């Protein structure tokens, strides 16, 4: 009698432990595959874009959603892999401390103010102390701020040099020694697979500084460069090749090229024609600049120019303003042909995201029409002759936009020339070493043109609302990182005959909302 209960119990247990199994489970051997690649130890190299830096800071959820981490999760579905480790920071505040002093600010969050949602710095104190060196090495070797040549630089992670700007605070957190280099720490791990996305900062820092640095064309000595300079394309190609030569010696990998940064929200959000004028104000401004041109003609003639010459030069200041939108004025160097040192922006020129928008409303980028200026205009209108002082008041009222707030035509040209040259080098190096290659430049261009569709909408490059870029206007959101990851997966599947699943873009977040900064 008892026996039957036991039999039933055994039968019951047998069924209970029998979990449903799918006919073709993704956990089955061979469902996904690495193809000819070997992902057993994947190492990612790069800069902030690879580190998971976003919203102007490095913080935990950004790191967790870095494209290498997304990739590593997919790699692990295809084969046994080492755990993908990242030099995680302390918190979701972002920012860094050096000896207790804040050396990098917290992240941006989107806060709603009186004029709607704006990015503001999260109101908290960073807790990540860079002198607390983590025990590495880490699979994600990306170092925010690194340029191409920094990967080869010994001592780039020496904490002693951080304060003086000689080394990098992010690398100082996880370098295996004071004297090591990024590439040495990467190679010491004997990677079987790598991704490399480096070179962005070789041109980005120039662009984000408003072109205040120098295009170091034909200067291959990188030790002479300033931090906002553009790396010489020949130097870049040489350095990049050296990096890849080491990495590719015993590993397969994928190289990512450099997007044209001038299409990201940092440069495209503030329109250069945001000077909105009603008809009377436009008339006033046009009158003001006719006055400027008139006075300038006289000044030049007093200095000995012919009437014809004087008019030719002064006429550039008779700028016409119309009701509606008008382009801002720009400060430029004073020259013989532009003695007042300003001009109106052209259609292509770009204002930078951090520009003081309140100041723009107060006359920055046009004219600060004070009472004194109005008096001078009245004198001129009455047909009188302004005094020397009044002329200075008149000319001084012009408030052109400063160099660091704008990327002018020549600077854009420098950025694009360098980017194109770097990308040529990256492509040919990828071909030489038979590596995978991802055209991030094309992806970024697509975000800016038609957008990249996914199941929940279309990712675009629009600031805040586009979904692809974080609140610093340059770095990806996690959703943008998933797009990069998917492009790499596509390339790996094609180049290495692998079968890897993609990331579901819609599952990754975009910008973070928080009121703490208000």
């Amino acid at each position: 009698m008892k026996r039957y209960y036991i039999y039933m119990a055994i039968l019951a247990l047998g069924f209970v432990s029998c979990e449903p199994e799918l006919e073709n489970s993704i956990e089955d051997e061979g469902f996904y595959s690495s193809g000819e690649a070997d992902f057993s130890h994947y190492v990612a190299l790069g800069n902030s874009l690879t580190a998971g830096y976003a919203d102007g800071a490095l913080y935990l959820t950004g790191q967790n959603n870095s494209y290498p981490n997304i990739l590593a999760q997919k790699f692990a579905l295809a084969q046994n892999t080492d755990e993908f480790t990242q030099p995680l920071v302390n918190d979701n505040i972002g920012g860094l401390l050096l000896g207790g002093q804040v050396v990098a600010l917290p992240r941006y969050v989107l806060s709603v103010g009186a004029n709607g949602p704006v990015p503001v710095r999260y109101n908290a104190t960073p807790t990540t102390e860079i002198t607390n060196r983590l025990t590495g090495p880490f699979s994600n070797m990306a170092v925010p701020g690194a340029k191409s040549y920094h990967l080869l630089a010994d001592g780039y992670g020496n904490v002693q040099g951080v304060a003086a700007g000689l080394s990098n605070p992010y690398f100082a957190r996880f370098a295996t020694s004071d004297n090591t280099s990024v590439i040495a720490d990467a190679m010491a791990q004997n990677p079987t697979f790598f991704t490399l996305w480096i070179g962005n900062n070789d041109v980005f820092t120039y662009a984000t500084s408003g072109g205040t640095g120098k295009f170091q064309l034909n200067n291959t000595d990188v030790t002479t460069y300033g931090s906002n300079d553009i790396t010489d394309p020949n130097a870049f190609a040489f350095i990049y090749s050296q990096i890849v030569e080491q990495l590719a010696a015993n590993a397969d990998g994928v190289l990512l090229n450099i997007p044209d940064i001038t299409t990201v929200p940092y440069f495209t959000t503030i329109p250069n024609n945001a000077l909105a004028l009603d008809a009377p104000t436009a008339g006033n401004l046009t009158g003001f600049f006719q006055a400027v041109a008139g006075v300038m003609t006289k000044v030049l003639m007093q200095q000995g120019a012919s009437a014809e010459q004087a008019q030719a030069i002064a006429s550039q200041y008779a700028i016409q303003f119309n009701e509606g939108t008008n382009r801002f004025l720009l400060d430029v160097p004073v020259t013989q042909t532009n003695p007042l040192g300003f001009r109106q922006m052209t259609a292509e020129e770009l204002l930078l995201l951090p520009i003081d928008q309140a100041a723009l409303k107060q006359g920055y980028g046009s004219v600060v029409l004070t009472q004194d200026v109005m008096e001078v205009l009245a004198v001129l209108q009455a047909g009188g002759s302004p005094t020397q002082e009044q002329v200075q008041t008149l000319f001084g009222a012009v408030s052109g936009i400063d160099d660091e707030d704008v990327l002018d035509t020549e600077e854009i040209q420098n950025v694009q020339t360098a980017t194109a040259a770097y990308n040529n080098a990256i492509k040919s190096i990828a071909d030489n070493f038979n590596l995978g290659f991802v055209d991030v430049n094309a992806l970024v261009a697509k975000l800016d043109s038609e957008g990249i569709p996914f199941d929940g909408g279309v990712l675009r490059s629009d600031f805040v609302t586009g979904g692809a870029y974080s609140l610093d206007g340059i770095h990806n959101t996690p959703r943008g990182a998933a797009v990069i990851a998917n492009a790499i997966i596509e390339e790996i599947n094609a180049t290495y005959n692998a079968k890897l699943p993609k990331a579901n873009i819609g599952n990754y977040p975009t910008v973070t909302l928080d009121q703490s900064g208000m």
Partner: protein
Amino acid sequence: MKRLFLLGLMILATAVTYAGGYRVSLQGQRGLAMGHTGVAVVNNAELAFFNPAGLVYLENKINTAVGVSAVFSDVVWQNDEFGQMARTDSPVGTPFYAYFSYKLSDKVSLGFASYTPYGSSVEWEKDWAGSHLVNNIDLAAIYFQALVSYKITDNLSIGGGPIYANGSVKFNRNLNRSLTDIDGNRSNVTVEATGVNGFGWSAGIMYSPMDSLRIGVNYRSQIDLKAEGGDADFQNIPNSPLTPFEDTTFDAELPMPAELTVGLSYQLNDQWLFAFDYNRTFWDAYESLDLDFANPNIPDSKNPRNYQDASIYRFGMQYTANDTFTLRAGYYFDESPVQAGYFAPETPRNDSNNFTGGLSINVTDNFAIDASFLYSRFKEITESYDYYQENGQNVPFEGTYKSSAFVPGLGVTFKI
């Protein structure tokens, strides 16, 4: 003898019960062991559920049947496009029943029944890929019913009575696929309502054209459980006026659909009884699960379900081995009420083949132990739920599902 039992257990282990949607067909160990048939079977007090018309045919004056089942059900889901997989870790469900009948006279029996015909308990891994549809749900409804059974002629009877239903629901899901607070914790909402009431009725008729054959029809009405003022608890919401989700109350309504059963039983000889039941469950009533939040700033949640009426085909047999042992087995095929494109992971049910078995042990003339088990085998299915929206756009949630359920049950029958 021993051998016979083992054989019986192994071979007759062909039976079933677990219905589509959130119907849980576990309303009697004897009926369940026979494929959950019983609309035309006069066996014990389980008739209170299967067909109250038959209560009057029970031989004893007082009949009681009480039992409980343990539902072990698991679901696995995967999406091979994105390399995602998830398994439920659902708590063990324990549907029960308690039936009582009292023979007032030869013509009239009175009865009382309490049972749990609807419920669902599904728990996915928190923040799994479908967490914007459901993280976990626990739905339960208890029916209480007073019954009268009346014998019109010796071979024709009717029965029925009013039902009071009391239900509760607890449901958690993430607000969407990606919203988090500053620390990356997914924003989610738990809605909970208890003591939700509704009224209905059931009625049946039983006819016996000849001694060995019975025919039965039973109908149980739809009961709408209306939750009013349930609690909605929002968690991990970003600190922002752009996400004005505050704890509030909600109203919602969930139908416990009507069910019509017709069936017959045939007593071949002293040992063998065969039974066939056909169920039609009127799932059409379940069009949408809508949560109406009291706070006007919180958008109401509309979740189309669009269930369709579904049928279940049941077959059972009983072998009376001797005075002590009775063996039972059964099978049923259960059609899913869920339509293509509406396959939501909160009730991931598709068509299933169900195998049941069980036995009764008459410990004394008055007291028997009834044991049963059910194994539900769901076909693997690749389906999607297409009516979740983001930014006004339908975002399908797709994947391949496979479910199974194993339900051992134990009960007692008491009669004097």
